[in-house]
Each structure stands twice: as structure tokens, then as C-alpha cells.
């Protein structure tokens, strides 16, 4: 069809639908850099120092990267403010702990089971709450989160209540056991990278665009042919699945879990990671988790003042960078260019859309 408005005449007539953006070189550069840090630099530091403290921080960081990236999926990208994420983290942790200590199931079973059980709870929570909007949805997730915490705390027959569950076996795979510092870290890192990769594919795609459209204006997305309710439920289920996976990793790396690991404060901590990193920005969620785990540890020397320093840093970062350290728009552009996910090149070679 040939329809022109005046604007069209200003454009070069030869601007055909552009060829796919080819940025393999740069894509490799960034992917390699990230993999080199996760599987080269950090393991080298752990082996070099032999520090279990360092290994523990690295493992905690990886677990929180999964939590932050998954919360970003539902809250940042799809715009459903969840303040009960830690509860699904808890469900995953308890599922893995109970399945392995009571039924003796191996890690290869408990890991996906933890994710699926958390996702099932996520689905059941999502069904009735998806029609709630903004703050009302947040309050509903707060209520659910507290409920789950109270159940973990008081259902002593199953969860052992405040005593928690001890003796959870370490990560193992077909006879191989992650019983050294390095192997524990590596196992967690491999799984965390896989989780982030899946979230990356979901977010940085046209599926992700549909999720962002929900956040921007769900009625409008509805009239574009987007099944809004289904997409909202999907995003919540995906987020709770990965929270469950993170829970299983916590259970199998720390050998001991208790309800206090999954309090409301944890949900807020995860939310803070997402907001400080940049709502809707997956790279931001990763950076936010790094920042919020590593900073308090780096400030140990100043003793009791460190949490004040962390709070002040959060306050200032959000004051100075209200869209987060890596704002969504910047992050999407970065992923399009540097990970070769973008589709088209216009004028200066800027890719748009998704592959």
C-alpha cells in the first residue's frame, strides 16, 4: 500500500527494511567478559585466597542475582509490584530441604521441584489477584508473603518451625558432590547464569515488549490483541519459579534454613536491588544485587555504621539516578547492540525491535 504523509517525504526514498543487525564480534566480547568474571576471575579469587568468607559472599550474590532478576521480570518489566517475593524463595527452599532430607531425593530432582512448587503457589496466588492493580496488588502480595512466613514458622510438624531444617545435603549431580568452596560456587554460578539467560531471552524479545505494554497501559494492550490476564499470570509464575530455584540453591549450599531467611525484610531487600539497579532493566537487576550484597560486606570495617552507609547510598543513588543505575531504556539499547538481540539498523546503525 502506498500511503504518504508529509513526514515520509523528508526521508530518503531508499530506506528499505534494513538487514538484520550483525554484531557478532561485540556480542562475543560482552558475553565472554561476563563469563570470564563469573567462571574465571571469581573462582580464581576463591582458590587464590582460600577464603570461605569470599566464597560465601559470591554464592549469596549469585542467589540474589536470581531473586533480583526474577522480581524484575514481574515488577520491573510487567509492572506488577510484588512485595512478597521472599515467600516464594522460602517455598522453594523448604521444598528442596524437605524433599531431600525427608524423602532422600537427589539435587537433580529437588532443584526443578523447588521451582515448580513455588511456581504452583505463584499460579494459585496469581489467579485471583491479577485483576488487582498497582498498590492493591502489592498489598495482596504482602498479605500472601506474611501468610507463607507464618505458616513456615508455625507448622512445626513439617517445617520444624523456628528451629529450621538442618543437615540439607550439598549440591550433587550423579555421584559428584559440590563439597569444596570452589565447586559449590561453580554449581550455583552455572545455575544462576542459566536462570539469567532464560530471563534475558524472555525480556529481550517481542514477548518482553508485550509485558512492557501491560505495565504501560494494560487496557490499551488489551485492545491490541494482547491477552492481558494470561500474560500477567505467566509473568508471575515465571518470577516465582525462579524464586523457588534460588531457594533450593540456598537450602543446598547453606545446609540449614529457617523461616527468618524469608521475612518481609528480604522481599524489600530484593525490591531495593531491582529499584536501585533500574526497574525493568535486567542488567540493572544483576548490578543491583551485586551492589546490595557486596557493599555491606565491603563496609564491614566501619562496624555498626555500615548499614547506615548502605541506606545512605541507596537513598542517594535513587535520588541522583531515579531510573536506577542502568535505566531500562539504556539497558534495552545496550542489549540490542552488545548482545546482538536487536533487529534493524536505522541511519547510524542503531538496532530496533528484537531478533
Amino acid at each position, binding site marked *: 500500500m502506498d500511503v504518504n*504523509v508529509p513526514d515520509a517525504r523528508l526521508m530518503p526514498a531508499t530506506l528499505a527494511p534494513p538487514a538484520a543487525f550483525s554484531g557478532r564480534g561485540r556480542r562475543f566480547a560482552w558475553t565472554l567478559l561476563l563469563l570470564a568474571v563469573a567462571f574465571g576471575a571469581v573462582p580464581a579469587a576463591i582458590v587464590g585466597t582460600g577464603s570461605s568468607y569470599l566464597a560465601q559472599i559470591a554464592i549469596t550474590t549469585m542467589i540474589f542475582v536470581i531473586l533480583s532478576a526474577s522480581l524484575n521480570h514481574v515488577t520491573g518489566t510487567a509492572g506488577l509490584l510484588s512485595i512478597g517475593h521472599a515467600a516464594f524463595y522460602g517455598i522453594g527452599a523448604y521444598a528442596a530441604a524437605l524433599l531431600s532430607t525427608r524423602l532422600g531425593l537427589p539435587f537433580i530432582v529437588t532443584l526443578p521441584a523447588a521451582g515448580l512448587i513455588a511456581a504452583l503457589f505463584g499460579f494459585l496466588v496469581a489467579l485471583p489477584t491479577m485483576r488487582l492493580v498497582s498498590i492493591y496488588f502489592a498489598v495482596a502480595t504482602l498479605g500472601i508473603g506474611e501468610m507463607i512466613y507464618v505458616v513456615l514458622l508455625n507448622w512445626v510438624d513439617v517445617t520444624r518451625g523456628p528451629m529450621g531444617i538442618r543437615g540439607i545435603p550439598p549440591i550433587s549431580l550423579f555421584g559428584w558432590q559440590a563439597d569444596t568452596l570452589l565447586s559449590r560456587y561453580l554449581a550455583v554460578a552455572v545455575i544462576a547464569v542459566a536462570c539469567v539467560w532464560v530471563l534475558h531471552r524472555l525480556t529481550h524479545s517481542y*514477548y518482553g515488549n508485550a509485558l512492557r505494554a501491560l505495565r504501560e497501559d494494560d487496557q490499551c494492550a488489551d*485492545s491490541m490483541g494482547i491477552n492481558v490476564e494470561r500474560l500477567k499470570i505467566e509473568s508471575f509464575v515465571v518470577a516465582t519459579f525462579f524464586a523457588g530455584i534460588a531457594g533450593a540453591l540456598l537450602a543446598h549450599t547453606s545446609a540449614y534454613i529457617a523461616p527468618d531467611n524469608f521475612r518481609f525484610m528480604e522481599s524489600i531487600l530484593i525490591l531495593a536491588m531491582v529499584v536501585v539497579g533500574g526497574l525493568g532493566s535486567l542488567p540493572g537487576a544483576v548490578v543491583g544485587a551485586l551492589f546490595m550484597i557486596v557493599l555491606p560486606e565491603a563496609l564491614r570495617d566501619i562496624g555498626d555504621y555500615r548499614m547506615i552507609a548502605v541506606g545512605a547510598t541507596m537513598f542517594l543513588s535513587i535520588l541522583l539516578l531515579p531510573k536506577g543505575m542502568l535505566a531500562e531504556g539504556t539497558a*534495552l539499547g545496550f542489549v540490542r547492540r552488545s548482545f546482538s538481540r536487536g533487529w534493524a539498523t536505522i541511519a547510524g546503525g542503531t538496532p530496533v*525491535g528484537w531478533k
Partner: protein
Amino acid sequence: MSNTLLSIQGLTRRFGGLLAVSDVSATIAEGELVGLIGPNGAGKTTLFNLITGFTPPSDGTVTFDGQDVTGRKPWQIARMGMGRTFQNLRVFPNMTVFDNVSVGAVGAFGQSPWRALVNGGAHSRAVSERSWEALERVGLTAQAGDIAANLSYGKRKYLEIARALATAPRLLILDEPAAGLNDTETAELADFIRRLHAGGVTVLLVEHDMGLVMGSCSRVIVLASGRKIADGTPEAVQRDPAVLEAYLGVEDDAA
């Protein structure tokens, strides 16, 4: 007359005691450019919402492309080929121009999380190409990478139309597209809509402004106080006493 694309029969909507739309029947045939006008409060927006599925009717049916779509959800109706724009400009402000348009294409092609993970290449390419095409039709390809909120008001109007076009609509419903535009911009828009129609798109133009509708449409439906009071060529409608009364009022109006 070619095939009937949209047919509404006895459409009625009550809000409490208020009869917003009362027993309205009309049809739109494939290839038509029809205007729907009426003074403020005539029930245009309500009728619009009844057709697109946002409001369920109290009574009556909506038939689109031979199927009864009464009570279906907006996304289902949209997917059947009914595209729309909004009166009060509802672009996705924090998304790029291209991504805005892609949502329309995604709506039409469907999307699943699995396809984002594996084997989605062909699907994504189809969405990309459809979106680019829609941007070309409104002349916004140069702004493809810009954040939608940063576009001028007029360009955001065209962006909305492009997004609706990306759904590959069989019927495109434009809700007061001239609102907020000056005379020059309105004339450009009218020109654009006529060319869109000439290119084969069936258009229902809901307008407050008489000029745009009378100059562009082959048929005009007039709504007043929730009722259809006229349906015919612009010339016939303009001479219709009931229309003149609704728009200008008559001194000895007993009602």
C-alpha cells in the same frame, strides 16, 4: 453492496437509570469509510466501547465478520481484526516508537514465552517486518528508536494509528483523531485517512468535529442522546432536520 463487516443490532447500554445508548442498529460494509458523529454526550464513546468489547451491552448484539462477538473480550475482538486508536492518546510512553508499534503486531501474531526462548526467529522477523511497514505507512521510520513520550503530539497520533495498523485490522476505528490538532494538521490527517481508505482499509471514524467527517466519509451515522437519528450521505445528513435540531437546537423543542 459488498460484504457486511460489522453489524450492530439493537445495541443498548444502561448505566443505572441513564440510557447511554438506546437501540442502535447499523452496518458497515467492507471497504467503506463511515463517520460516526454526534454532539457531546450523544453516546459515541459508549457505542465505541460496546463495539470493541470494553463495555458489555445491556441488550443487543455485535456481529463482526459474520461472527457474534457480543460479550467477547477486547483482545479477542482485536485479534479478529478490529483495530482502534484512543481519543486521549494512549501510546506506551516509556517504550520506543518501534516497540510501541510492535505490540500491535505481537497482538495479531500471538506470542508465547516458549517462542521467546527457542525457535522464535521467523516469528520475530514477521513482527519486525510488520512493524516497520506500519511505521513506513505513517512516515515515522526515522523516529523508530526514539522514546514515544518524546514525540510531538501530532506524531504520537500517527504512532497510535501505526500501532493499530500493525494489528492488520480489517476494520480500523479511529476515536476522535482530530482532537487537539490545528486546522493544517487536521487537513493532513484527513488526507492521510482518505489514502488509508483508498489503500483498502475499512474505516469507522468517530468524530466530534463535523468538518473532517463531512469531507472524508461516504456515509455518516449521527447519534444524539444515545439514539441513531440519521444514517446517510454527508449531504443528506446535513439537510436532515433531526440532525440540525440535535446540533443547533430548535426553539419550539417540546422534548
